[in-house]
């Protein structure tokens, strides 16, 4: 109690304005990386490369945005990559069979959402810890996807549909517009709705949240459902971008998405973080990987670097948590 009394008398230090500060630091970091890369590589600042970075970051962000909500509740969804794969394959099939991109989009979103809800039910009703439940789901989805595709590829989608992933509007790739939309929607949902506030409260202290009258089970189902639906959303954009669907497109998506969330300042322990922060995190990671590509670093180093950054980000988060608590 002595420590608290002293701290209460000390100059105020609130966590809320700290949020904006944390994002600022990360934006500065991103800027720094840009400056360094522009010196190290001539082609970094080329229009083509910048647009490429933005597009890649968008794709990473779609998955990471829904994941942010899950991590805010101190959970984890390891199945997002596999979710994207299955959703893409099913949506692709529907587009090919029916010729209707709309039906395809709906299929992708529905598949993602259902998977998300299943994850949510394992966590709330079956009380399985989220990382185990979604890890098991990851393998189930993987298996289903590979079995369904039976080694084949679906390709060739209607040109109108492909615009979603490869098209441009006023010089910017369409995914970037989608990113801005989802950034806005995500931020509004998290910061400007009662559901969002309840999600923050649930992550910050689940026991107190429950005793404050928040229906935690319903909120958890919501966040896992949203995370799954966003993976479904991402699958559509991938489909449109790659103009094909294969069983393995999800393999390398999960780790970067988690990394983006953690780099962006969302804490694994819940209650702290923003969707905008995840965007900056996606940007930073994409810049780093882009830089490695431009400098012709062996692609095999990418998962290593991502893994190391994840561990670092968690360590930094734990250190700062201990200081403020």
């Amino acid at each position: 109690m002595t420590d608290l009394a002293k701290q209460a008398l000390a100059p105020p230090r609130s966590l809320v304005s700290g949020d904006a500060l944390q994002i600022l630091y990360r934006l500065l970091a991103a800027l720094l990386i840009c400056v360094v890369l522009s010196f190290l590589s001539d082609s970094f600042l080329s229009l083509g490369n910048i647009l490429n970075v933005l597009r890649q970051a968008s794709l990473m962000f779609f998955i990471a945005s829904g994941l942010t909500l899950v991590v805010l509740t101190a959970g984890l969804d390891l199945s997002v990559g596999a979710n994207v794969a299955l959703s893409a394959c099913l949506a692709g099939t529907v587009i090919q069979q029916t010729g209707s991109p709309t039906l395809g989009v709906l299929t992708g979103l529905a598949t993602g959402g259902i998977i998300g809800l299943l994850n949510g039910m394992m966590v709330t009703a079956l009380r399985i810890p989220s990382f185990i439940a979604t890890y098991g789901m990851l393998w189930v989805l993987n298996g289903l996807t590979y079995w369904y595709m039976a080694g084949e590829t679906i390709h060739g989608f209607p040109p109108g549909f492909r615009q979603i992933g490869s098209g441009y509007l006023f010089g910017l790739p369409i995914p970037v517009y989608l990113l801005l939309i989802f950034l806005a929607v995500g931020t509004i949902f998290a910061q400007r709705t009662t559901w969002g506030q309840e999600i923050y409260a649930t992550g910050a202290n689940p026991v107190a949240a429950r005793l404050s009258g928040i229906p935690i089970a319903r909120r958890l189902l919501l966040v896992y459902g949203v995370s799954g639906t966003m993976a479904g959303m991402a699958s559509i954009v991938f489909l449109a971008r790659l103009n094909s669907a294969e069983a393995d497109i999800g393999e390398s998506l999960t780790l970067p998405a988690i990394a983006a969330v953690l780099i962006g300042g969302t804490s694994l322990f819940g209650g702290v973080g923003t969707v905008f922060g995840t965007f900056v995190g996606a940007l930073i990671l994409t810049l780093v990987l882009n830089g490695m590509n431009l400098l012709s670093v062996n692609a095999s180093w990418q998962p290593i670097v991502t893994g190391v950054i994840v561990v670092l980000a968690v360590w930094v988060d734990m250190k700062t948590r201990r200081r403020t608590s």
Partner: protein
Amino acid sequence: MSAAVQPAGDAPVTVPLLELRGISKEFPGVRALDDVSFAVWPGEVHMLLGENGAGKSSLMKVLCGADSADSGEFYHKGDKVRVSSTADAQKLGIAVIFQEFSLVPYLDIGQNIFLGREPSGRIPGTIDRRRILRDARRILDSIGFNIDPSILVEKLGVAQQQMVEIAKAISQNARILVMDEPTAALSDRETELLFALIARLKADGVAIIYISHRMAEVFALGDRITVLRDGRRIDELRPADASPDQLVRMMVGRTVDMSYPRHFAETPGKVLLEVRRLAAASGISDIDLEVRAGEIVGLCGLAGSGRTEVVRAIFGADKVTAGEIIFDGQQTSGGPDQAARRGIALIPENRKSEGLAPLRSVADNLVVSALRKLFPSHLFDPRRAQRVADGLVKQLRIATPTSRQMVGLLSGGNQQKVVIGKWLATGAKLFIFDEPTRGIDVGAKSEIFALIDRLVADGAAALMISSEQAEICHVCDRAYVMREGRIAGQLSRSELTEENIVRLGMHHA
């Protein structure tokens, strides 16, 4: 009182096994121990009595080296010693039988007894499990505990686990055992076994410091009794020279130095909460109570008597196994979210871990329960939330630089105001308080009581758990006293005295 009284015994022992002189310990704002002297002789059971907060656990912590005293001296068999760590205490042969046992669930009894001291087997690197079982068997027999040492601890009941803890202590040559309410979770038969064990230990010259609230035990087992109150040693006497009433009076008498702003209503309002034959898996049963608008009803009893369990069951935080809860004329069931929506509010015992999100702001914490009420469209307006929060801060006089301050940095009293405040915005009609003034300084306590008084004057009802009998007596219209998971009795305003509460709450023979 004079120096330590010598116990009766055959061999003349001139020096106590362990003696504490002038022990004091202070926490900010609270004197936990004030010049306490205490001596233990071999082969005796020394009973330690006192209310919640009298200083018993502080004394035990100092004794076993988990905490250090601010001043005072330790003497072991007459020699001055320092006890500044648990290792020091262990070397002197002091062992505390923990309430939360230090046992490993999926190891067997023998392995638990010898954890860290396993004897080596013939093949280098291995341990001799047969010898562990043999030695464990010997120790268990020596304390009269007839059980197969190869049984996993996880399979044992609480009573048996306690026996294993005692066996562990004995195997480490403990000569002074500290037991904190050891019979709290035991059946009558298990209690008999424990008493038989204590008799053997006594015969062996082991000293036992025994904390208890059960008068029957105190007089049956005790060789000497020390009563603590407000951190001071009130007296030390032999059971033969004392009576239960006398002991109760010693435990309870206290100078009142607080103001309790309370305006009792002339006529009670309508019944807001009615509880009938309530039972829960948490260990309460057959609970009948009612609370009316305009009343503050107290819920008393010793720690562990089931008070928190009752209010949690009412609030829906724990599963109800039998009985009914009728709130404002309607049967209620379901979880905390439904209780909150109907208008029941819970201010929990541990405000930091159960009542607040310490890393979030004061404003966030103040509006969290009322979100649906304040923003029916589900669109959250931070500025309106801020205004509501600022209003509550002003109304409750919460001391914080701004409402954006992290709530974990506030003082205890102000944190409690935030917890209460978060329910004000919901328009709750029944406020349940679990130890609302624990760990709060005197000034803030008065403010909290004034606040509760205002709430019920405006037509709400309050159910209040408190371990401070003085509070209950000054503030409550009436009170229920709990004992071992049931309601032991009800006290009307005129019957509401500290002594009555303590008497009803303790286990009389």
